[in-house]
């Protein structure tokens, strides 16, 4: 129990009697009540699920992972020291679970290739070449988890290097070198024979034609 607890008015929108307010403990903004945590968790679920799908590369595996992540987050929500960081906290849980999962090599369900979802659900797909999208996902899936993770944090989650360094608990230099290696491997995979992913010239020409 924190010896220096101070309560402040809550996050709002909660029924009387439930709102316990922000709890400040040793200068750190804590996660608030369980109800507030639940709402924050729900708000972050779409992004978490997207991240999981991109990381795992198939939808059913990603959904299992997110469900495990929800269970663990609900059990450990009191460990979240700063509610503002819930996104990174959830991604860390999910990533750890994924690593455990890979180690255990637990049998998975029939994998629904993520490219099926992209074909079904992505409004932007019609503008592009489904073959290219498929090859891009396939190329991503050839990378190590570490490389996929860092590419997604930069390119999908929009984190800057310092934020990534804090989330992964690695030095800034490691973030930069890991990202460089990841991008080079991805490019090499995309340029491998048989890939339908567009080469640079095609992509640039496509983008120019869109302008």
């Amino acid at each position, binding site marked *: 129990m924190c010896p220096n607890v101070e309560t402040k008015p809550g996050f709002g929108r909660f029924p009387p009697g439930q709102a316990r307010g922000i709890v400040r403990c040793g200068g750190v903004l804590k996660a608030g009540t369980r109800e507030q945590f639940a709402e924050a968790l729900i708000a972050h679920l779409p992004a978490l*699920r997207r991240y999981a799908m991109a990381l795992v590369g198939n939808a059913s595996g990603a959904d299992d992972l997110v469900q495990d992540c929800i269970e663990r987050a609900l059990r450990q929500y009191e460990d979240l020291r700063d509610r503002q960081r819930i996104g990174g906290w959830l991604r860390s849980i999910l990533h750890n679970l994924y690593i455990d999962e890979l180690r255990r090599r637990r049998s998975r369900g029939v994998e629904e290739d993520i490219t099926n979802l992209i074909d079904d*659900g992505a409004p932007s*797909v019609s503008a592009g070449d489904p073959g290219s999208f498929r090859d891009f996902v396939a190329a991503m899936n050839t990378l190590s988890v570490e490389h996929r993770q860092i590419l997604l944090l930069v*390119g999908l989650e929009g984190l800057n290097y310092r934020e990534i360094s804090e989330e992964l608990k690695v030095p800034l230099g490691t973030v930069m070198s890991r990202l460089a290696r990841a*991008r080079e491997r991805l490019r090499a995979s995309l340029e491998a024979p048989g890939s339908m992913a567009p080469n640079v010239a095609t992509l640039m020409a496509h983008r120019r034609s869109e302008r």
Partner: protein
Amino acid sequence: MSPHPDIRDEDLHAFIDGELDTARNAEIADAARDDAALMDQIAAFRADKAMLAEVYAPLIDRPLPAEWLKQIRGEDRRRRNPWWAPITAIAASIVLLIAGLSTYRGLPANGEESIVREALAARSDMLEANKVVVVASPSEAGNVNHILAAALRMRVKAPDLSRMGYKLETVHVYGNVPGGESVELRYRDAKSRDFALYVRHPSSGVRFDQYRSAGLRVCIWQDDVLGTVMTGPISAAEMQRLASLAYTGLES
């Protein structure tokens, strides 16, 4: 690898991501203007970064499974329980265990969840079957449908789950359950995973639910006419598709 001798790979990517200070940023921009290979390299990495966002970003719009939201909000209620809640939970578990054992022994059990207990008991071969039919080939479908219809006393047929890679392996018929007899259709896929479809007359109202229990995905789908429980070591997404196929496939 950076084609320019004075530019480290790390700096090149930091340039692409706008992470460099103004002076170093200007140096690389100047170098790229004079070096076509460097310019192409930067364009390639920028294109890959853009492609990544284009491919994955729309996945955020997919609707969330209702089960997750229920789980999160349901967990809230559970955690608000008072200090004596664990004692009550243990007592309730003992009652459920006794009720479950009664069911396994073939005694009729009322209540909404009895069908699930039966299905799980059947799956683990703890229910004694009146009849077991091993399905050797798809040509026996007519025979299986006849067994199913006779046991349930209604026009139903064994669903064809081959589209999902599952082949019907066995049919178990059980007696002494609510509504008379029940049937378990057990399917297997190429990875030797068993998907069990337990069918009988419903013991309660319309219900659809899906959750995970002891390593199995469990789906209850019940209407006024049929009660079904589907179980398998599969993901929620796969269960969703299999359940749809199985439930609609029961219609004769």
